[in-house]
């Protein structure tokens, strides 16, 4: 075994109920200690479901999970009761998209952080409050002593997200999950939070899985990117590889759709159609119906996974032919 912090093997998640949705299909992913990985994908690609599965937040009655997840050597899928509680918070914690909804409006932010610390570590209230103060300082909140006594509604969106990060990091987890934490923020605030997360990752040395739909955001925070489509990882590699040498047609389409280098007024090379509804488990390339390079064999069977180097892979028959979309 290697030193993988997160080891997801052949994970499949299916929601049953009124409609069946194959949200995640045979997903394999590893994250090493101290690494930041961006899970990049559009709505319905399964990126948030992956995070929720990692934290075991999905409703067990309507969810069928197959495969294996290990975090720091612990089998996550069999955890229950106390162990699960300890795992959430001490090993892994999460930052959400809407900090205003994730924080309790009737307690001060100081109390909420202190309470989280006391739940996991046997320390006194006074010590917990001083930890909370230290955390607010680390997330660069100005005049933290005063902010400790603020209620969530008294803080701006950017401040709330800082508090949320402080809360998530208070117990020093080894793994931080971030679910679109900057999507609801203004541009000038978003970049502050992204750079803060980057700094804190170095400071605390934790692993980070950062879910986003925005390539630019992924570039700013991550050293690795995994591109998700229809519940599968279609391409994975270092951020540089994904941006400078994208091999999967979907990745290339996403990069073009970012418009950062689109000629003004020129016709966009848009990906046609919309993602599949995933009512059945994909048995061919899910992207083939929208792909400009699709051939009959793409529609006949799942694409082979090309592995150009140890930690890079592309699930496409065209992976070896670099950049030929015209």
């Amino acid at each position, binding site marked *: 075994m290697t030193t993988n912090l997160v080891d997801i093997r052949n994970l499949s998640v299916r929601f049953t109920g*009124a409609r069946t949705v194959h949200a995640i299909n045979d997903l394999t992913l590893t994250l090493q200690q101290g690494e930041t990985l961006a899970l990049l994908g559009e709505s319905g690609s399964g990126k948030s479901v992956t995070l929720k599965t990692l934290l075991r937040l999905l409703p067990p009655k309507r969810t069928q999970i197959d495969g294996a997840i290990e975090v720091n050597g612990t089998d996550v899928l069999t955890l229950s009761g106390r162990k699960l509680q300890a795992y959430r918070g001490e090993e892994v914690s999460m930052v959400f998209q809407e900090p205003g909804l994730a924080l309790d409006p009737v307690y001060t932010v100081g109390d909420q952080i202190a309470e989280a610390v006391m739940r996991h570590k046997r320390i006194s209230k006074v010590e917990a409050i001083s930890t909370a103060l230290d955390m607010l300082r680390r997330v660069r909140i100005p005049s933290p002593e005063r902010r400790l006594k603020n209620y969530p509604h008294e803080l701006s969106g950017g401040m709330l997200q800082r508090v949320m990060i402080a809360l998530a990091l208070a117990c020093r987890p080894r793994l931080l999950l971030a679910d679109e934490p900057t999507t609801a923020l203004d541009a000038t605030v978003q970049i502050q939070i992204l750079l803060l997360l980057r700094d804190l990752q170095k400071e605390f040395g934790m692993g980070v899985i950062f879910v986003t739909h925005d390539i630019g955001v992924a570039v700013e925070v991550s050293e690795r990117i995994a591109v998700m489509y229809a519940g599968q990882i279609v391409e994975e590699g270092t951020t540089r590889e994904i941006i400078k040498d994208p091999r999967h047609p979907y990745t290339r389409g996403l990069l073009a759709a970012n418009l950062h280098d689109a000629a003004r007024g020129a016709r966009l090379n848009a990906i046609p*159609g919309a993602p599949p509804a995933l009512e059945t488990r994909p048995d061919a390339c899910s992207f083939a119906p929208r792909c400009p390079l699709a051939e009959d064999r793409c529609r006949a069977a799942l694409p082979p996974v090309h592995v150009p180097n140890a930690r890079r892979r592309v699930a496409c028959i065209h992976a070896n032919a670099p950049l030929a979309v015209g």
Partner: protein
Amino acid sequence: MTAIDPLDMPVTEAGKGYWSGVGARLIRDPLTLICMSVIALLILSAIFAPWLGLGDPYKGSMIARLKPIGTPGHILGTDEQGRDMLARLIYGGRLTLFIGLTPVVLAFFIGGTLGIVAGYAGGWVNTLIMRTVDVFFAFPSVLLAIAISGALGAGIVNSLVSLTIVFIPPLTRVAEAVTSGVRALDYIDAARASGASALTVIRVHVIGNVLSPIFVYATSLTSVCMILAAGLSFLGIGVRPPEPEWGLMLNTLRSAIYVNPWLSALPGLMIFITSLCLNLLSDGVRSAMNVRD
């Protein structure tokens, strides 16, 4: 012509009307169907009571008083004046259901209109309507019904009036809340931006979207209304004897509770079953009307 991007996205089941969707969901809900049948049965038997071959609900007999349930000729026994209980319960359904439903229907139209106007117009119109309504909320509904009925005097019409007044405020409030929510949505703005008058916007875009929550809430009020109406009769300020009405019957049988407790409980049981079914029905209708699911 420029090329259109292909849109070969699979779409959900073929476009059906909203109400057929609601119907389809209702049919798949056995509990709601049962409750619906019970209510329908009660209403039908009340309407067709004279043709069901029942005894005369008014004709008493001094010797056959308080016969127990199962007496030959009187399947559900007789009351304290020897009148047939089955006939009285079924005939009683007529008045009880009428007094139980009519005030809610009236209040649904009056309160619904007031609430939609208040919610759509906002500003001082809203303040005027809603603050007036708030005054009524200062009194418990039972007390209010008793006070108004007491002031107007006993009788069916006065009961109807007082109960209608009691139910206007809650319906206004719900209608106002729902309408304000819809009013804030962009499609209302889009309709206004197309130059439509307030009345047209309300007719085409507001009513269809607020009616079902108000309707569902009104259904849940019918059980309360029935109990209140029965309560008024029980207190002697609603229906007057010898009319058969469940609340009134409960009152007059009260003294017989030690002689024949099961018999005395029958009108109460009817009230209980009806209001329970109405409540469950309103829950079922609510979930069937929920479009996004």
